[in-house]
C-alpha cells in the first residue's frame, strides 16, 4: 500500500519476494543490501531460525533520490517459504505494491513452485487482489544448478500470462537487479498512471 506523506514529502512502496522454501528470496535481498550505496539503504532485518530459514520475514528499506521534492522509498520484504508459515505470508502481503515470485529452477522443486504460486493466488484473494492488480515479476533462480528445468517449460507452467520474467543465479547476483528494477518501475508506473 503506497503511502504519500505530503508533510514529510515521502512516498513509500512495498515490494514482496514470494516463493517456495529455499528458492533464494533472502539471497536476493542480501545481494541488494551488499551492493547498493550505503547512504541509500537502511538496516537489513532478518527474522530467521537458527538454521537460517526465514521465520517471519526479511526487511530492507531502500531510498531513491529526491524527485520533484519527494523522497521515494521502497520497502523490500521476503516471506517465509515453508508451507507451514502461511499465516506469516498472509500478513506480509498486506498492503503490497509489487510482487516478485522467485521460482527454484531445479526439477526436484517443480511441485513446490506450483504450490507456492497457488498459495500466492489464494492469499492475494483474501485481500481481494489478483496478479493483474499488482505489478508482478517472475524470477527463475538457480540456473547454475544441475538438473534444471528448461525456461520455456517453467514459463508455461508458472507464467502463462507472460508477466516479465528473468533467469537468475542470485548467489552470484545474476538477474537480481534486473528483477528488482523491473518490479520497482512497474510500481512507479502504476502510481503515476492513476
Amino acid at each position, binding site marked *: 500500500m*503506497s*503511502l504519500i506523506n505530503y508533510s514529510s514529502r515521502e512516498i513509500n512502496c512495498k515490494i514482496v519476494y514470494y516463493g517456495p522454501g529455499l528458492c533464494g528470496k533472502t539471497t536476493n535481498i542480501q545481494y541488494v543490501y551488499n551492493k547498493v550505496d550505503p547512504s541509500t539503504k*537502511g538496516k537489513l532485518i532478518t527474522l530467521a531460525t537458527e538454521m537460517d530459514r526465514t521465520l517471519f520475514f526479511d526487511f530492507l528499506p531502500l531510498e531513491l533520490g529526491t524527485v*520533484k521534492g519527494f523522497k521515494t522509498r521502497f520497502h523490500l520484504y521476503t516471506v517465509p517459504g515453508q508451507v507451514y508459515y502461511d499465516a506469516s505470508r498472509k500478513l506480509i502481503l498486506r498492503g503490497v505494491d509489487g510482487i516478485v515470485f522467485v521460482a527454484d529452477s531445479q526439477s526436484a522443486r517443480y511441485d513446490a513452485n506450483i504450490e507456492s504460486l497457488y498459495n500466492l493466488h489464494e492469499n492475494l484473494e483474501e485481500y481481494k487482489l489478483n496478479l493483474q492488480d499488482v505489478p508482478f515479476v517472475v524470477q527463475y533462480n538457480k540456473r547454475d544448478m544441475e538438473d534444471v528445468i528448461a525456461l520455456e517449460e517453467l514459463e508455461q507452467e508458472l507464467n502463462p500470462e507472460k508477466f516479465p520474467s528473468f533467469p537468475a543465479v542470485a548467489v552470484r547476483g545474476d538477474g537480481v*537487479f534486473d528483477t528488482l*528494477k523491473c518490479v520497482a518501475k512497474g510500481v*512507479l508506473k502504476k502510481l503515476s498512471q492513476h
Partner: protein
Amino acid sequence: MVRADWTIYEEDYWAINSVLKELIDNSNSTSVLLIDKTGQLIASVGMEPEFDLMSFASLCAADFEANAQLATLIGERDFSTLYHQGVDESMYLSRVAQHIILVVLFNKRTTLGLVRLRVKKAVDSLDTVLNRLFNKLEYENEDLKQFDSTFADELNKEIDSLFKD
C-alpha cells in the same frame, strides 16, 4: 494523477502531530510514533531514537499483526493494545482507527498506568482526525499533478543508477 492507497495532507499531519505532542508531554514518555498496519511510518515525535526508524516501524506492524492472529486463535477479535516491558525501556502499542498503530516508548520517568491513561485519550482524538482524513480520501478525487509521467521517468533514472551491479 496518482492514486495512492492513502495520503497524508499537510493539515492532517499537523493535527496528528499536535495530538502526539500532547501525549508525550502528558505521559512523560520519550518517543511516540504512528505507524500504519503495513509497517509504514506516518509520524514520530519526541526524542529521536538512535535505532533505524523504518525497521522499527516494520517490526512493530509485524508484532501487532502476529498478536492479532494469536487473538483470533483464542477467540478474541484482536488485542487492541500490547505492552512490552523492559528493564529500562518499555513499549506500549495501541490500535487506532482500525488500520493505524500508536507506539509509545517510555522509561522509568513514568508509569504504565499513566501511559495507558493518556494513550486512551490520545486514541480518541486520533480516531477523529484519522477518520476525517479517511473520509476525505474516499470522496476527494486526488489530482496530484506533480506525479505525472515525467515524475516516473525521473524516478526510473534513479532506479537505474541505484540498482546496478
